[in-house]
């Protein structure tokens, strides 16, 4: 069977696949993308989760807030960390580390026994189909512009969550960002 697996691997596309013998054949048709006028960079918000660097399209991020006191919600699903009051608006705050397999359990951040949040922690308020929702992140890195040519599929062996929340990778210079799909990450 492993021969079959090999063959099948070759069938599937990878940007760094082996094209021995074909380079001359397809000469003149490689990444002239930089010259193509259609290349529009998109802005992403990059943030940290357990030391790893992730990013979301910026248009899905409504705002970034410091972590306010969260209200615990009884009998809620485990990834719902609590409720936050943002200038009068009540928003749910979620943990996505468990879904991304960065942690076994969601952190305890609400309720009377919860410790104070770390200084760098932030809540990203995201726009989603089901309404605005907050996501707990360990720190915000900043806004990064990624051109389509910088995007790739996740490499093999990438630890991806159980729900395709990871949709790709963005490489810009030495930095690598794991691109997430907010809807998938927050789906219940």
């Amino acid at each position, binding site marked *: 069977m492993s021969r079959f697996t090999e063959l099948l691997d070759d069938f599937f596309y990878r940007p760094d696949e082996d094209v021995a013998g074909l380079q001359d054949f397809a000469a003149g048709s490689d990444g002239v993308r930089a010259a193509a006028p259609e290349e529009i960079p998109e802005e992403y918000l990059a943030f940290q989760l357990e030391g790893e660097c992730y990013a979301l399209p910026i248009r899905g991020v409504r705002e970034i807030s410091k972590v*306010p*006191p969260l*209200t*615990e*919600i*009884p*009998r*809620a699903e485990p990834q719902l960390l609590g*409720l*936050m*009051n943002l200038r*009068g608006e*009540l928003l*749910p705050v979620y943990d996505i580390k468990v879904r991304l397999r960065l942690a076994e359990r969601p952190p305890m951040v609400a*309720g*009377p*026994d919860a410790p104070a949040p770390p200084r760098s922690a932030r809540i990203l308020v995201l726009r989603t189909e*089901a*309404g605005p*929702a907050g996501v707990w992140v360990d720190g915000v890195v900043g806004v990064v512009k990624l051109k389509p040519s910088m995007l790739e599929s996740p490499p093999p062996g990438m630890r991806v969550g159980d729900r395709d929340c990871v949709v790709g990778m963005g490489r810009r210079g030495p930095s690598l960002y794991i691109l997430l799909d907010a809807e998938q990450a927050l789906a219940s």
Partner: protein
Amino acid sequence: MTPRSKALAEFVAEATEILDALARDLLALDERRGQEADPELVNGIFRAAHSLKGLSGLFGQERIARLAHGTEDLLDRLRLGRLLMDGAVLDALIEVLDAFQALLGEAARGTESEGLSARVEAMAARLASLGAPVEVPEDDPLERLELDAQVRAVFTEYEEHRLRENVRRGVALWRVRAAFDLSDFDKGLAELNARLKPLGEVISTLPSAQPGGAHGIAFDLIFGAQVDGAGLEAGLSGTPAELSPLRVRPAVEAVTHALVRAAEPVAAARDSEAAEGSPPPKRGGGRKKGPRAAATPLAPGVQQQSLPHLGEAAPPEPLEWPAPGAEPAAKPSDSLHALAPTTATELELPPGAAPAPMVAYLQGAAKASRGLSVAPPPPSSAVGTGAGSAPSASAADTSLRSLTQTVRVDIGRLDGLINMVGELLLIKANLQRLAESARQDGAVALSKLFGQELARETRGLERKLEALQEGLLEARMVPVGQVFDKLARLVRRITREAGKEIEFVIGGGDVELDKLIVEELSDPLMHLIRNAIDHGVESPDARLAAGKPRRAVVSLRAEQKGNHVVIEVSDDGAGIDEARVREVAITRGLITFAQAQEMGRRELLNLIFQPGFSTARSISELSGRGVGLDVVKNNLGNLSGIIDVWSERGRGTAFHLTLPVTLAIIRALLVGVSGRTYAVPLNSVLEIVSVQPRDIRTVERREVLDLRGQTLPFVRLARMFALPERPVSRHFVVVVGLAQERLGIAVDELHGQQDIVTKPLGGRLQSIRGISGATDLGNRRTVLVLDVAALLEEGMALERRRA
């Protein structure tokens, strides 16, 4: 919001208001289908179409503008009497309204579907081709009206038409003259109009040629009265109005007088600009008249000359009514009102004549038995539905929610609120003064006088703030009739589709509720009514066979009961088959056979609110969307409301929805459990007792309390919420109850009462059981508000399961 989307939101809000008004008028017209159409309603719809045309043109909404233009044209023809209002026209207008709603929906979403555009085109074409023209009678009754020609010259075509109709119908005509001060004449005129409106129809308002004094302005209102002279005078007492009747000559004299009249104005009009010259007898001409400005240049002398003709100086004569034969169309049921201001009517009225008919467009209309209906339509209105009328618009079941988040607020209310803020500012100033003096002179702070002053200001502040709060809440209130009216239209359609015959009765539409609640009610109510029509009500034949009237009655009523509003949706249909409910519940594993034996009738019926429950044998396209009564119950629960059902086989079913009047501010009890704090709405708290652990007994594995000889089911909130339980020496038990149910909820601590503003939990948080919202306690402390109804139910269910 981008400027563009803000503009769009404004457009949608305004357009919605216009369409709401249009819908109301149209509904009223539809209810009186076959009868004479109230000119006020037609005019109202005309104005609405006109406004909509202008508004949508301004915002570049071309499809809406186009359709509005076509509608406006049609209505103009109607109101000028050049078109008959028949069933086809009404149906077309109803379809147009549907189209407008759909167009507005697309506008709000920013989409444009081809299907809808095609529909608009087709409708516009149809509107243009509608209607049978009215035959213009030979003799113009207006000729018989003794009204100065110059005055007549300034009427618009519409006003002339109205006047003609009034004369034709024998409505008593008056000239109401009133003079006002220049500084507030608009108020005065508005008041006068308000007084006149219930008494009849104001056909025209003209600036009077007779001056109103140095600082005044006078108006002449041409008025068609539905009451007699005495009634009119009584109605206008206190206003500066002077009445003089307008004489209408009998038809026979018409010709001679027309000749006489033709001679006069020539002399009178010498100086004037009524170069419209001698007014020839007017036909139903096509052009609008010149602006009122033509009236003003009349020399005073001219006016003086013609006044006596109008009977001002001479003693008023009773109106002579032309013999019935002279009328172009005999109206046997027309009733007549004589207009001798001092004497009672002397004319013979046809026996059994009802009060004056509304002026109508339909010629030969027989029925005129409605009362003085210039007032707003009575709360109870019947919507008759026949089978197979005009094709319904798209059967797509859209929600009845508003497209906008706006509320209409009476400007008086807003002014009141602004006043209150002004007073608050005063109090603030006082407090500042006190604080300042305390700062400067330390000894003052300790004086008793100072303390008293401070206390007084604070109390005043508290009162004003409460009043402000209340006022603002009131601004959010809207009459529940808003959603009732929308439902009425839907009912027509559903009934037709279901092939049933239904009389839909609405009551209590002016009961007010928070706008949010009213909006949230639309879907549940729609669902319940659908159910009633589809499943509750039998087919006309089945009903007859059962000895019931062919037409079923479905009623929707709202009633205010203190802090709550009860809305009843009921039908006199087949009722809920309790045996079948039990059967289904057992089959679906909702209850065991043993439990079913124990359950009372009411409990059994309430099973229909369980998720996944449906006894519809055939899930028709209309109601089988998988939305069950459990969703209705849930939705209501989110509003802190409850639903109850009563039913009897063969007799009917009634659902009672109990809702709080306002969601926003409630008085709550703050309780502590396992170190967390929750708020319990006080309106569901019956009492609070303190119990020792030993007072809690276990009966058949249920925990109960003995409360004054009665057994009270008991749950521990910590356990329910899966929180760590703390050992306590005593429990505080909050006894809650709704309708007949009671439950004791044990908590660790009581933290006092507070007025809180509840915010509902939106979207993603809907599914949290037992919590109905959250509130801000200040200090950024957000506390969850318990959903007593849900907890009650959970507590009861726990019991049932354990039993």
